[in-house]
């Protein structure tokens, strides 16, 4: 009772707000319940869905199409391959989040897992049939694009951040121009560049795969943002650290590697995680340059079938839930890391 009084009804105004919001909430929740659960059709039955149209959701579209939504155009019989590859990559991502795995051999593990991932997805060896990259799609592609572009952007962004802090004017200018140029334009224009201009950049008779082009574009884009995050960490290092390292006779790279970067990177882990979350969400844009990641593969799955075309909203909600689960858990993890870092500082 006391809790209710303090939190909901402590004065006239608040009581009125509580009642009004409460009523709205009950109305909204009951309608959502009715549409999404009570009157909803769960079976993959187009006729039943049609009958319930307007009154209830048709989750049958997910039951019917989930394989196309999640794996895109990947050949149906071979879909255990992207499944296994994605599971492997996700396990590695999860492991990379845990403190006990933060060791030098983690980098080697990443290389190994990526090699297995590409072997599984592409095939051509060990009796696996070849599946070209234009048939890759869905969740595996989303996770691949997000993790590879951040992993690739990481070393590049460290160089850019160091360059921007450098005492050498030419290098500083080059890095600043790159970072500000990329941060000033929308991702979509960089993706257009990847799809229209990169082929022109290559020497004649030399063509690169569209997946690789998009991957390069996303890496270059993510690196500019990540560089600013890391620069923030570098600026947080007190001058005394640089001076102490220099007076010990360390060279520039020794100083960065052993003294500055370990401290700077530790303080910006939450920022790096946020960058990863944005990149994960940004992968949805590659649909526009016709790579069928999660958002694109949903269109593919639903638009091709007149029986299910009317239930696109349910499909959207399904993939929205997938994105939400990933991004929400990543942001919770980033908050946990932030607390760990702060606790370390308090000592």
């Amino acid at each position: 009772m006391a809790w209710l009084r303090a939190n909901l009804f402590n004065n006239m105004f608040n009581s009125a707000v509580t009642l009004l919001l409460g009523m709205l909430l009950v109305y909204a929740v009951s309608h959502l319940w009715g549409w999404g659960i009570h009157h909803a059709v769960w079976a993959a039955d187009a006729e039943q869905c049609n009958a319930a149209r307007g009154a209830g959701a048709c989750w049958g579209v997910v039951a019917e199409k989930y394989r196309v939504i999640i794996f895109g155009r990947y050949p149906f019989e071979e879909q255990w391959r992207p499944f296994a590859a994605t599971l492997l990559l996700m396990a590695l991502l999860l492991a990379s989040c845990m403190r006990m795995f933060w060791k030098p051999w983690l980098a080697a593990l990443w290389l190994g897992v990526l090699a297995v991932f590409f072997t599984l997805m592409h095939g051509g060896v060990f009796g696996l049939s070849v599946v070209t990259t234009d048939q890759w799609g869905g969740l595996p592609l989303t996770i691949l694009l997000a993790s590879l572009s951040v992993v690739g952007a990481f070393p590049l962004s460290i160089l850019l951040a160091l360059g921007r802090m450098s005492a050498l004017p030419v290098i500083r200018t080059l890095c600043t121009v790159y970072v500000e140029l990329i941060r000033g334009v929308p991702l979509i224009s960089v993706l257009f560049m990847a799809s229209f201009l990169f082929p022109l950049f290559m020497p004649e008779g030399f063509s690169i795969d569209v997946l690789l082009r998009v991957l390069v574009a996303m890496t270059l884009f993510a690196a500019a943002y990540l560089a600013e995050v890391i620069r923030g960490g570098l600026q947080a290092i007190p001058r005394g650290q640089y001076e102490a390292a220099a007076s010990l006779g360390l060279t520039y790279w020794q100083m960065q590697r052993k003294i500055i970067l370990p401290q700077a990177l530790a303080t910006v882990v939450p920022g790096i995680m946020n960058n990863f979350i944005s990149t994960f969400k940004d992968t949805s844009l590659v649909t526009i340059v016709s790579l069928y990641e999660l958002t694109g593969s949903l269109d593919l799955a639903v638009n091709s079938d007149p029986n299910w075309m009317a239930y696109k909203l349910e499909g959207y909600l399904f993939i929205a839930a997938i994105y939400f689960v990933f991004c929400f858990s990543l942001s919770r993890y980033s908050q946990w890391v932030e607390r760990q870092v702060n606790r370390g500082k308090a000592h």
Partner: protein
Amino acid sequence: MSFWRNQKIRGWLYQLAALLLVVLCVAILADNTLENMRTRGIQSGFGFLLQPAGFDISESLFGFESTQPYWKAFLTGLGNTLKVALIGIILTTILGVLLGVGRFSQNILIRGLCLMYVEIFRNIPLLLQLLMWYLLLVEFLPTAREADPFLGMFLTKTGLTLPWFGDMPVKAGFGIKGGINVSPEFLALLLGLVIYTASYIAEIVRSGIASVSRGQHEAALALGLSRGQAMRLIQLPQALRVIIPPLTNQYLNLTKNSSLAVAVGYPDLVSIANTSINQTGRAVECIAVIMAVYLTLSLLTSVLMNAYNRRAAIKER
């Protein structure tokens, strides 16, 4: 000290090497591009901007016809980008500040709903949200014939029709006459941008207010100010110093994100450029136009916001 050990000389050598590397890369890429364009017969140059565009644009601020030149098409697209960005920035600021302040409400219902809003809309990609809004607007709304007015407005499959300076929209035959019509494409883009960006602004405002020490709030209450007054007159103005720099970033993000218009068919600058690329094949020039325009916009916004930030910053003696 030997020549190669001299810090200064080594610095210049490194810089020279970096510069040479960049120039070399650019030269190789430019050479390849010119070579490729020649062999594929792609024409280059900005001369095409003076040719007639030959495509229609569904909405424009000052009217556009397909016989008008490309540069006018780009200008129309830019106008549409600015329209959605400006209206979006105003609306998202209002919504974001309300949501951020709501996190400090005494009412747990308000606090909870604000938190839920932020967590839901921040964690779903903007593109997906835009597609969902567009789908809702064009599939689940009544047609103009079945629509009923709400406060003088009509919300139908053809968009939102608002009264405009005494010109009330009325139903006439199959459609709606009078008022001004806002297309569903514009509405979906605006809704998506406003709702998505507001979730970020809410967090910025919340952390800004949290950075103002609690004593300020308590002192304001002790002076006899109400909680609302304390927030409006004491806490928010002080929080503004922390809020403005990241807020600028969000305004820039909203402007850049308006380029997702291409997914819902709103004719913004990027959509027009995309159409132009497909029609003329001048990818280099069209992408250069997009980038130049957005860079200018970013620069202008940061100059303006920096000027405002200097006014809001703490004046030290």
